[in-house]
């Protein structure tokens, strides 16, 4: 049965019928516009990075020290360009393409914990 047939019969598109975006797709999406961590996300800073926890979905994710520092710096303003710029300032020797790749990967890892943000009340 096709997706449209299922939707027609049931009248609703269920979660199973609409595959969740992959981390890569989410990372691509997060490279556009402003994002922030959802307010209820817990960030536990550890010696070697941080653990993100979503109490509503029970999801956990770990990030490295650099990503942890970025989240502590601005959990309420996640912006691909700004983060790349900050890292470029800090790691002067690193190539921009490398930094962009790393930030994209990081955004994929935290996509579940983030939401779009219009920039107000920042």
């Amino acid at each position: 049965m096709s997706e449209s047939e299922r939707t027609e019969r049931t009248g609703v598109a269920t979660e199973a019928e609409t595959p969740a975006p992959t981390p890569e797709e989410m990372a691509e999406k997060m490279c556009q516009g402003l994002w922030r961590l959802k307010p209820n996300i817990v960030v536990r800073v550890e010696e070697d990075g941080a653990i993100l926890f979503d109490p509503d979905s029970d999801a956990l994710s770990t990030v490295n020290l650099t990503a942890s520092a970025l989240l502590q710096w601005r959990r309420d303003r996640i912006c691909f360009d700004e983060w790349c710029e900050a890292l470029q300032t800090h790691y002067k020797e690193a190539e921009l393409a490398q930094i962009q790749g790393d930030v994209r990967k990081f955004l994929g890892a935290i996509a579940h914990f983030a939401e779009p943000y219009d920039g107000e009340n920042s």
Partner: protein
Amino acid sequence: MITRRCNLRCLHCGSSPEQFLREDMSTKELLTVIDELVRCKVFHISISGGEPLIHPDFFEIVDAIMQRPMRWQLDTNATLVTEKAAERLKKLPRHPFISVSLDGMTAETHDRIRGPGSFTRMKRGIGALRAAGLQVRPFMVLSRLNYGEIPQIFEFSRSIDVKHVNITPPASCGRAACYAKDMALQPDQLREALEISLSIVDRDPGVLTGPWAHAVDFYRVLKGGTLAGVKRTNRTFLNCGAGRGSLTIACDGTVVPCDMSYTYRTGNVRDKPLLDIWHNSPMFNAIRECRGMPLAQVRGCEDCSWHDACLGPCPAGGYALTGIWPAAEPGCVTREIGKLFDHEAIMQESGKVS
């Protein structure tokens, strides 16, 4: 652990009222502890007892958890679960993971262990939880009194769409210490319980969880007659997560590594901040230092033949019975399973004679 009070007097209970040094914390103190757990960025908590549902402010405590960013588990005997209580649990924004004590599938067996009438009330409680659409996970303490009913427990679990059953050997502390000799499986019973469990796990991998699942895995390896292909443990003490990734706060505020180690007191949240106890208690640090310790240095493991395939004993049981850290508990299940086999033949087959 929110209360020491319980409506049952189970033979295998790892707790006993006499082990607590101070009175139970008040509801206000419990709420303060929850806030402290939030400050420590604890993600998961288990609410246990005694029987947690006997606490007059149970739902006030639960509501407080709901307002904090954490997930929770409820450990209950289910006998006090009414339809109203189940509905209230169902309405919570984050449903608990509910672990229900289930020690037999006949009233005779369950009531012998947990007291008269407990079987009927437990089944009614599970029925109320299921009717409310809540998932439960049976928790069975395995003993010579109930090992014959393992198949029926899994059958019942399947009938109510339960995906996992947690089975554990009896604790070595609390009231259980008094009945340990009467409850421990004899070698032939141990083999039978392992065979029954193995056939269930072979049909439905992953359905069995808890310490008994490790015992069954170990039995499967030895039954295969060789350790070849088995991931070697490098003969070191790996230890469980207690004291490294988790802890228990007793109803009187005492902080211990797990609920089987009440004599291993690391501090009290009424006297010191939890984070201070967690980071600075010499007793917690002693646990962390044990990781990687050669099993030959663990008291009670020195002469065991199965270091190659053992993850190390339950240190809580060892400490409860011997007062020594780290030590294996006398009657360690790995050792008892090992005794069912010819060690030399297995090692020869493995291409390694120790």
